């Protein structure tokens, strides 16, 4: 708690924290109260601009945009957070193990990881989605697997360089177990780049989810997510730009919040910056 307050006392932490808090609030409550039914269609009110009845206008099926954005926040944010969480957890475990012990296990795992990296992440996710079938947790699993290699590579790289540091050797000389040394001395010191990657990844995932939706493999319609709203708006961008701009703004807003907060978190966790 004291940590959190200290993060919020930094300018980027405060701004990022407020933005992120707002997004989380919407994500948690958006689906509960919306002005209209987010999936309810009204063919008499298609492509309407902002007005008193529809605060942010309507889309091609006459669905209320504000309601859809509010409802979509929950899905988008959950999917992104879960994906990043799974990818980072998996990547840290595999990467730390490979980097610290090296040897044949590392060689084989890294060959597989590098093979995975040869595919564009989205292609990999696509293939996985076809196998799993479209639903929310399928998206999480598919995207997490697609982004796992980059986390693994990053963690392995930093661990590889940190294990040669003399303070790691000193820990071994003090009689500490390998596991303790890894948890206490190696991983905390690889946190900086990891946090930067995770926050950036959060943005990739939000967009990747929209790409999957676009190809009909993401969270299935008519359930709204910021990603599939952006995708659906594509055909109407020239005439009705707000259809794309509004979900785009939401994504940017969430992304900026996460990144600012992530930076503050990284600085806070590093004693050299205090």
């Amino acid at each position: 708690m004291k940590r959190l307050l200290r993060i919020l006392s930094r300018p980027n932490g405060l701004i990022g924290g407020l933005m992120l808090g707002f997004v989380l609030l919407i994500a948690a409550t958006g689906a509960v109260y919306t002005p209209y039914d987010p999936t309810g269609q009204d063919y008499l009110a298609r492509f309407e601009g902002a007005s008193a009845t529809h605060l942010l206008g309507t889309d091609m099926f006459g669905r209320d945009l504000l309601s859809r954005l509010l409802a979509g926040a929950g899905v988008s944010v959950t999917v992104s957070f879960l994906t990043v969480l799974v990818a980072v957890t998996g990547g840290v475990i595999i990467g730390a193990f490979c980097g610290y012990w090296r040897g044949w296990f590392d060689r084989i795992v890294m060959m597989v990881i590098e093979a995975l990296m040869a595919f564009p992440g989205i292609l990999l996710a696509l293939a996985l989605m076809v196998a799993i079938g479209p639903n929310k947790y399928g998206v999480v699993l598919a995207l997490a697997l697609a982004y796992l290699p980059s986390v693994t590579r990053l963690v392995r790289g930093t661990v590889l360089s940190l294990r040669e540091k003399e303070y790691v050797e000193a820990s071994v000389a003090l009689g500490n177990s390998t596991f303790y040394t890894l948890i206490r001395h190696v991983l905390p010191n690889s946190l900086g780049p990891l946090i930067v990657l995770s926050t950036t990844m959060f943005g990739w995932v939000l967009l990747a989810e929209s790409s999957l939706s676009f190809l009909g493999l993401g969270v299935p319609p008519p359930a709204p997510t910021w990603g599939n709203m952006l995708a659906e708006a594509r055909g109407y961008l020239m005439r009705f730009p707000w259809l794309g701009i509004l979900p785009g703004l939401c994504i940017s807003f969430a992304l900026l919040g996460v990144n600012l907060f992530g930076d503050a978190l990284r600085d806070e966790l590093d004693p050299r910056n205090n």
Partner: protein
Amino acid sequence: MNSMSSTPLLQIRDLNIVFPFRKRSITAVHKANLTIGHGQIHAVVGESGSGKTMLARSVLKLLPPPATIAGGSVLFRGRDLASLDDRQMRAIRGAEIGMIFQEPLVSLNPALRVGKQLFEGLRLHSDLDKGEIRERAIAMLRAVRIPDPEDCLKRFPHEFSGGMRQRIMIASVMTLRPKLLLADEPTTALDAIVQKDVLDIMRDVVGEFGASVMLISHDLGLVARYADQVTVMEKGLIVEQGPADEILRAPTHPYTIKLLASLPHGPQEKGRVSETAEKVPLLTARDIEVHYEIPSPWPFGRTRHKRAVAGVSLDLREGEMLGLVGESGSGKSTLGRALIRLKNPTNGTVSFRGKDILGLSGSSLRTVRRDLQIVFQDPYSSLDPRMNVAQLIAEGMRHLPEATRSEKHERVAEMLDAVGLGEIYASRFPHELSGGQRQRVAIARALVTRPAVVVADEPVSALDVTVQAQILTLLQQLRERFGFSCLFISHDLGVVESLCDRVLVMYQGRIMEQAPTSRLFEQPHHPYTCRLMNAVPVLSNTEQGYRLRETALTAQPLVQGDDYFDPMTDRGSKVRLQEVARNHFVALQHG
């Protein structure tokens, strides 16, 4: 030009260099005055942060931003460099003032052949044709004693050792026949023997062309050997200046006196040697070999091995300070780590208090580790940056189950006190400490478990001279108080002489000579030991002030039929240690 003989080559007048920051600017050099005459070697001496590098760089107007010259003038051959624009300045850099940096590896471009880099300057600053440029470069390489200059031109920098690279660097700077050479710690990264070679060559080449040198250094021994004039700097101020021999004979400023007093002051009182020589060995190693794997470029290919330690036996006795000297790459650090199982030896045995430790694993290994500790060379990387001092020191006690929390807390406070840091340091983080303070924390961490053996791997070579002296004194005090045995690894013969009871000389993974300290320094036998000792400039305190002690030791003659072992020529052949006097062993060829 006509007044050349009367105007000095370089004149720095009331020079101020500042780092202008928004809140307040920091002065790096304050009102510096310095004159270098023709054909002089002028040394600028000081510890890190004294501003000596800034002073040198200001001559080329190559200050690292945001540092700027904030007053005073730099006159080169009577011309004020401040009045010159960038283009005129470029004409002076290289052609008239050359610079040699500390790291030859980074100051030569690794992607270009040596020849190309040598020709570059001449093409830029002279109108010689291709053939002449080549001839000039070859002549210069010959002058710096590069064996095969023609071949050297075709090679890449990484194919040469550090010393050779620094010679190439000297050659590339001197091809332009500059009038002034700025040498910023040119040999700090090099070993003693190589250092002597490089500096001798530099002095000769510079003398041949009548150029002057501004030699930046922290090593007073070097200064005594090579410099005509000395400027001593402290925290941006010039505190003393004058002819080298005069300053060494009768230093006046307290800082100069302190610097000189910080030098290791010769052998310690005798008598201790025989005392420890009879004691039981605490840590015994027999025929230790450590191999490094060089992975094959092919998957599943055969890995090759490099022998970092090639068969070493030694005894570390109870309460003894055993010195281990050797140049970089001799395997001394690897040996130190192998003795306490931070590296697993490929062959050989290590026993501690008579019990084998190589077979241990799991908790029994962890228990024995409490008794075998290490202090590393670089205090900047040996402390976890994310832990505070109290946490760092307390970590050593994780495996003392009997100690309660408050006992551990007390022990931390006690250790902090023992290493001369107050309790206020407990909550500091490593980045808030100076190099010397960090090394104190590292020592406290190693000693908190009251180990029987401490391996000190070059514990002071990353520190300034005055701090170095403090840490060495501390180590001595702690050894008397806690009574541990210490393997003191160092490349600095002066430090070893003043600190250790016995010394091992290591070269190419093997022990060349082993003797009680005073005996080794008075009567070295092996040719390698002699070479090593001759290379190190030692200042000794005599009645007439500090004097450079130059030695020309030669190997002692052997009984007929015996030959000294030379690892450079006898690769793979066997070696035997022969006792030439009591406790004095020398490596001979196995006959």
